[in-house]
């Protein structure tokens, strides 16, 4: 047993434990002591915001032109149909109305997905430096959003309600909410990894590998987001994918890109080990998808520094 490490005091070879010094003391310089101390401090560069590019304005303008053209043409179509016969006009109106309703439904889905993402962002900000009560209210809202995925939502709500400080609130969310969600995201990642491994092994041409893995990747991002109560549409999925990239580039994400995670996956999935032996590319696709699931889970969680 050493002075610092735990151990049994009656260990045969135990050395006597030195008495810990208790009072502060300024010691004499060590041999070769430097004449100046520079702390370990090397701030990196900040990524600056880039303004809206001319290409974005161009795309926006073209989209507006197309949408305006389609809308005005539709109105003209209905008016022309009414000119021919009233029944024909009503039929055209019904068709256009149904199409418009579907478009609005899709937009409302996108809007709800954006709102859900914004709520998670707000909760993340409150957990980092906000007051207890606003953070608690936002946390309860989020628990409601993900309650279908929790083993015991009532216990999660009770723990959030009991938290006496923001730190405790974070701990309660970690224990009752993000833990189970991260586990579910990991399982989704394993499923996707297995499927991607199998698909790549079966693909008739290597050029299809990237396409198959990419398609499964987008589905996986949506699955993990749904686990976190986000249910993103196409546009929100795009926003989420950007966030996933930003998370992966951050400190938390880098840990997820290490070899350890690949080893962990192969250890838990013996089937994949067999596939890997036969088709090396299959393992790579599988590992990438598993990493994607874990990074997406971090990006979707309000506890950005949470368990991964």
């Amino acid at each position, binding site marked *: 047993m050493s*002075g610092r490490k735990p151990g049994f005091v009656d260990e045969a070879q135990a050395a006597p434990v030195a008495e810990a010094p208790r009072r502060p003391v300024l*010691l004499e310089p060590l041999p070769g002591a430097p004449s100046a101390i520079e702390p370990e401090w090397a701030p990196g560069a900040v990524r600056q915001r880039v303004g809206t590019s001319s290409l974005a304005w161009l795309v926006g303008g073209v989209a507006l032109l197309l949408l305006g053209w389609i809308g005005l043409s539709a109105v003209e179509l209905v008016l022309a149909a009414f000119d021919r016969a009233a029944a024909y006009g009503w039929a055209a109106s019904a068709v256009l109305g149904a199409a418009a309703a579907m478009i609005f439904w899709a937009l409302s889905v996108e809007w709800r997905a954006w709102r859900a993402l914004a709520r998670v962002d707000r909760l993340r900000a409150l957990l980092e430096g906000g007051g207890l009560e606003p953070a608690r209210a936002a946390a309860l809202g989020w628990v409601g959003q993900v309650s279908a995925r929790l083993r015991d939502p009532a216990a999660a709500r009770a723990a959030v309600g009991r938290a006496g*400080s923001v730190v405790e609130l974070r701990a309660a969310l970690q224990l009752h909410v993000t833990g189970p969600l991260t586990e579910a995201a990991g399982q989704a990642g394993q499923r996707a990894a297995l499927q991607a491994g199998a698909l790549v092994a079966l693909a008739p041409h290597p050029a299809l590998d990237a396409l198959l893995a990419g398609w499964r990747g987008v589905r996986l991002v949506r699955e993990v987001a749904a686990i976190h109560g986000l249910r993103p549409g196409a546009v929100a999925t795009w926003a989420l994918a950007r966030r996933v990239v930003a998370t992966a580039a951050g400190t938390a994400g880098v840990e997820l890109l290490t070899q350890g995670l690949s080893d962990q996956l192969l250890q838990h999935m013996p089937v994949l080990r067999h596939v890997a032996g036969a088709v090396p590319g299959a393992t790579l696709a599988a590992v990438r998808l598993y990493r994607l699931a874990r990074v997406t889970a971090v990006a979707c969680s309000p506890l950005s520094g949470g368990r991964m």
Partner: protein
Amino acid sequence: MAGLLDTLSAPLRRVGGVAWEAVERAVNEERIHLAVTGLSRAGKTVFITSLVENLLALAGGRDTLPELRARLEQGGANRLVSVRLLPSGSLALPRFDHEGHVAALAGREASWPGRTEDLAALSLEIVLERGSAVGRVLGPRRIRLDILDYPGEWLLDLPLIGMSFAGWAEAMLARLRTPARAGAAEGFLRFLDLFDPEALADEALIRRGHALYREALEALRGRMGLRYLQPGRFLNPGPRGEVPLLWFFPVALRGSPRPGSAGALLAARFEAYREEMRAGFFEGPFRDFDRQILLVDVLGALHAGRAAFEDTADAIADLCRGLRGAPGWLGWGRSPIARVAVVATKADHVPALRREALLHLLRALTERGLEGRPGGNSDGVSLHVAASIHATRDGKVPLGGRDVEVVLGVPVGEDRARPYFVGDVPPGWPPEGFWSGDYFELPVFRPPRIEAERGVGVPHIGLDGILVALLGDLL
């Protein structure tokens, strides 16, 4: 008609311009008053210097305040557009000499800036890109951050506002006569044995008494590390220096003093002092604070011994009561103070692994000042450990037969780095057995030389967390 329109167009354009400017300011500009205070030697001046330098460096593209940068990020890009020091304009207060303090730190022999003797103010403009696409149409937001530096000793005078001379004198004399303090105040206490407050006022005698009382306060501060010493301006008189209203000292009165007596003159000066502090400070700049940083030298108090530690706890309790009591705090009374950060400074004297204990110790020290505040301690009040300038490096050296964690720094006035072992930092109110009775003065390490070039930043510990806690709701 056309002539009338021509005549009106110029004034209309002017009115329109003024109205547009007012609307633009209302939409895009926000003004925050941030007060920084602490008891002497807590490091207020260097704190503000480092804070400003690191904000300027962050705006210049260096990640000097990572937590704040993370808060300002959106979609992986920084929303911070610029930070600049604003010109003083028609400011009625002395300007904080930021450039002078940076020059001191950037000199060949870097040295710590001098202590706060008076109020000083500095204004920064922080320009932020709005988060939403719709918001960006309105243009960037401008946060004007007015930083006010004031001596914490002055805040300790706030309780005097509600006290009579007799009540204050009785409380002060009781404190001075405690065994821990009586030695340092011996000269003044001996003088009081000879002083008759009913005798005719003798200016020379009263000035002698005042000088002895001030010497006692200085000895209590210098030799024992005590902080709860009133009146604050006796130790920190401010720019006006010695004025007659300061010439008083505590003395026990038997009933109302006779007009013309020494006791009556002392009471009148106490009243005048109280009135000046109320009108000139507490109802002046003090009233406008939105956010407050309270710096506490926890380690210094801990090492100075039990009396100093308890005295610091008393001082902090009174500072907290001062902030929440007279004008109000966090919804009590009239004060608009929305957030308060209580900071244990000099965290670079503690190895990284033991800073958590320092934070718990700060919590124990401030508990009494925060107790009874509605909403619990986490609402609006945050506790931090920080070092405005990181002047040390962590290391390990053998001590007492084992390797211990130390910090390495070059003490001021020396030319080689020495290891400093911080000793026990109890993670709560120190138990009885902790106090040894020895007074240990915290070593002052030479600051690392910083680049004179603007935008490089200053190495620090924890300033980013403090800014996020204080300003996070505005960002």
